[in-house]
């Protein structure tokens, strides 16, 4: 009985200390140069979608913020943190609304449930162009049930709707739960990293991939910044 209590206390101490010494990696993603102009989308062929946007939305391949901030960059721990195999139990949702994908970049864990919803008054077909995972293509008319699926291998997958060629999104299927997507001022934050050496990868759909190595020694916040070179086309 006594040993059991001792063990429990030890375990609590261990858990607490590991939590206490959990570090954070945070920083900003920015760009240099001039990004390609994000053209407004002509949705006149789909009036039910066009009327949902007071002003035409633009292409979202490159989304920027103030002070050269670069949004929609997936920042994740690509090595150093062994994937604990914890697949989040809640599903991620990919919505089609106003002939636009919300969010534009959707991150999910390998084997996490993915729910695709059509909130529009028009039919969409969802065509994720997977190369490592299975490629499928399904029609989803308005008012039909969500499409539920999952991917069993890590991959960055472009998603398109063939009926509405301007619709374009990205799935980032990762084998880690330590990830964030830069937003607003290009900010990202990767909390709860136990002491260790990590490789942090930043991925942008047009500008490619960058990595940075970082060592967390204790309860600290390390700053890591990424700068991508903008493509003018």
């Amino acid at each position, binding site marked *: 009985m006594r040993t059991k209590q001792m063990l429990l206390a030890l375990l609590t101490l261990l858990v607490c200390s590991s939590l206490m010494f959990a570090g954070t990696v945070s920083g900003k993603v920015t760009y240099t140069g001039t990004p390609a102009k994000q053209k407004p989308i002509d949705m006149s062929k789909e009036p039910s979608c066009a009327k*949902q946007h007071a002003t035409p939305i633009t292409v979202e391949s490159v989304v920027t913020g103030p002070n050269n901030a670069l949004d929609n960059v997936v920042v994740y721990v690509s090595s150093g943190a062994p994937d604990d195999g914890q697949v989040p139990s809640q599903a991620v949702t990919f919505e089609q609304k106003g002939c636009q994908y919300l969010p534009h970049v959707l991150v999910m864990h390998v084997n996490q449930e993915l729910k695709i919803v059509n909130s529009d008054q028009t039919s969409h077909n969802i065509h994720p162009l997977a190369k490592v995972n299975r490629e499928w*293509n399904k*029609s989803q008319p308005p008012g039909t049930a969500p499409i539920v699926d999952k991917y069993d291998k890590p991959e960055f997958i472009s998603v398109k709707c063939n009926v509405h060629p301007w619709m374009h999104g990205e799935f980032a299927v990762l084998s880690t739960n330590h990830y964030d997507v830069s937003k607003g001022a290009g900010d990202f934050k990767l909390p709860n990293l136990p002491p260790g050496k990590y490789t942090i990868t930043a991925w942008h759909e047009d500008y490619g991939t960058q990595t940075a190595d970082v060592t967390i020694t204790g309860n600290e916040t390390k700053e890591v910044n990424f700068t991508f070179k903008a493509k003018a086309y």
Partner: protein
Amino acid sequence: MRFIGAILFAAILGLVLAAGFIARASAQEAPEVGPQPRLVLKPMESHIGNITGHAADGKSDYRRYCAGCHGDLGDGNGENAVWLDPKPRDFTIATFKCRSTLTGTLPTDEDLYNTIARGLTNSNMPIWNTFTRQQRADLVAYIKIFSPRWEKEKAGDPIKVPAEPPVTIESIAHGKALFTKLECWKCHGPAGKGDGPSAGTLTDSKDNPIRPYNFALGKDDSRFKCGNTNQDIYKIFMTGVDGTPMPSFADVIQPNDAWDLVHFLRTLQVNRHGKETEVLSAAHGVIPPYVDKSPAPVAPADNKSPGGGGQ
């Protein structure tokens, strides 16, 4: 003097060896370019009826008849590929157009066997009826060596196609309503001529331009890629044509409704004579508006945001 010569010789030898070592080391770090790794002939099999195909037996036929377009490595980059449209299938990704199985799954051995026998209309894939059944089965087994998917996954289950109900003017009318509601016309055009508003923007999964099917062209059924029976047409839109913009409708069309859509699609083949056109002629060529007798459909309860769009 001789001593200095020996030192010089040793120094030069050392330099040469070091240079060689550095070159070897950097060659190891270089990305894979130049000669490709050798293809591994895996012992894949195919089973068609009572015939068993063996990859090893399909090798010589593949290299002689198929590799010119599909490539020695099965990647669709044979020497003829640059001249072809549509492009030859890339067997390394194991995505196939003509399947009896759901979208995203591997086709059955029969599906591939039938594709070889039938050829693919509107493409450069000929009808390989010169092959024996055993040869075709061996080729089906052989193309499985190109993708690891064939070792890890089973073929999808073939979709169930219920018996075809009789063609009536009502079934045609309902099919037409579905064609409108499911927005088939966005690509295929209101009269099925392949001229819908999205037709000009379509690309396949490798970004090559692709045209939607024109039902009105031609006098017979010879232009359907994946078979020309009513059952084949049923399968096409239920399974989708993987690798192309044509999606699967299996989740959204009920089996009997699917038959109504088949009956309507047949009437778009304006130069073809069949039971569907006879029924339509009997109705003086007019498709009546479809009257939905079932209770008004409501959005499923699990649809997340009711009235989310088009407020």
